[in-house]
């Protein structure tokens, strides 16, 4: 009974978070580099060409994980937004803000590699079909959220405004996922996450999953590092404000006696 009870809320302490981060960052970084190296080897050299698409299938190993990560980053932001609005978790908006540029980057990779895959296979760089258009909208949403963060100076107020917009924007995720089922699209339907299991040879599925794990690890490393940066940025901001207040009150106390 005399034992001090542990509360999960203690993990929300930014200082404690930074200590844990410093401990796990190095092994996580090594794991990420190793998995990317193995993934690239399989994707580029140790996997077969597709009987229809030839070597262009190798684009899939970066295009598909990028698409998953673009949606995963937004899902992380949505959960973080709930954390901001419902539980007022001190790290929630830090997490959401840090994930946005990463999600934007993965959306960009998904869109560009999709174009490079589409040109030789479809005969066009771009088509306004539901899957491509909804992914482009996700990319634009990311840019909008990043702009909103920059537009509002106070991070607490910005966090709340962005959280509301993020929750509204989450509607795009199921639209992207099911666009190929709901509408007639040039983009192929789902081949990995289907009700009947993956419709892909294991010689291609394994490299794809390795690249997906590698990309997720890369996202995790960059997200945690960006979260650390955001915590430091807020500390600096509060220290600078504290210093400015101190200087202001010092100036007032000096000025007051000379006031007639």
């Amino acid at each position, binding site marked *: 009974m005399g034992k001090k009870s542990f509360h999960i809320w203690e993990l929300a302490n930014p*200082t404690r978070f930074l200590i844990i981060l410093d401990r796990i960052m190095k092994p996580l970084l090594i794991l990420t580099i190793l998995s990317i190296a193995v993934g690239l080897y399989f994707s*580029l050299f140790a996997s077969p060409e597709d009987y229809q698409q*030839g*070597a*262009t299938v*190798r*684009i899939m190993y*970066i*295009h598909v994980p*990028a698409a998953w990560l673009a949606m995963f980053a937004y899902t992380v932001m949505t959960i973080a937004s709930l954390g901001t609005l419902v539980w007022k978790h001190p790290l929630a908006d830090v997490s959401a803000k840090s994930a946005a*540029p*990463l999600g934007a*980057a993965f959306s*960009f*990779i998904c869109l*560009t*590699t999709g174009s*490079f*895959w589409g*040109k*030789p296979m479809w005969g066009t760089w771009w088509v306004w079909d539901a899957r491509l258009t909804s992914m482009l909208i996700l990319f634009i949403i990311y840019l909008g959220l990043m702009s909103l963060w920059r537009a509002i100076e106070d991070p607490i107020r910005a966090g709340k405004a962005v959280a509301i917009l993020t929750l509204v924007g989450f509607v795009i995720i199921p639209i992207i996922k099911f666009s190929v089922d709901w509408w007639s699209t040039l983009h192929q339907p789902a081949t990995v996450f289907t009700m009947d299991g993956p419709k892909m040879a294991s010689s291609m599925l394994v490299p794809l999953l390795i690249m997906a794990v590698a990309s997720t690890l*890369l996202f995790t490393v*960059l997200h945690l*590092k*960006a979260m*650390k*940066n955001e915590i*430091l*940025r807020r*500390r*600096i901001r*509060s*220290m*600078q404000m*504290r*210093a400015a207040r101190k200087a202001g009150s010092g100036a007032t106390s000096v000025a007051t006696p000379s006031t007639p």
Partner: protein
Amino acid sequence: MIEIFGKYSGYILASYGISAVTILLLIIWVYQDGRILNKTLSELNERGIRRRSDHANK
């Protein structure tokens, strides 16, 4: 043109190239941001400006 992936080499290498550059820029941006913030933080500490919790801990 490097032909290691047959007639589609250009498309494949461009895809991997653009992805590599994007991720590299992202890594540089995140780590450079961290370096600048750490530098600013130590400058503030050197000037004797500390967080309220640092004062409270002393």
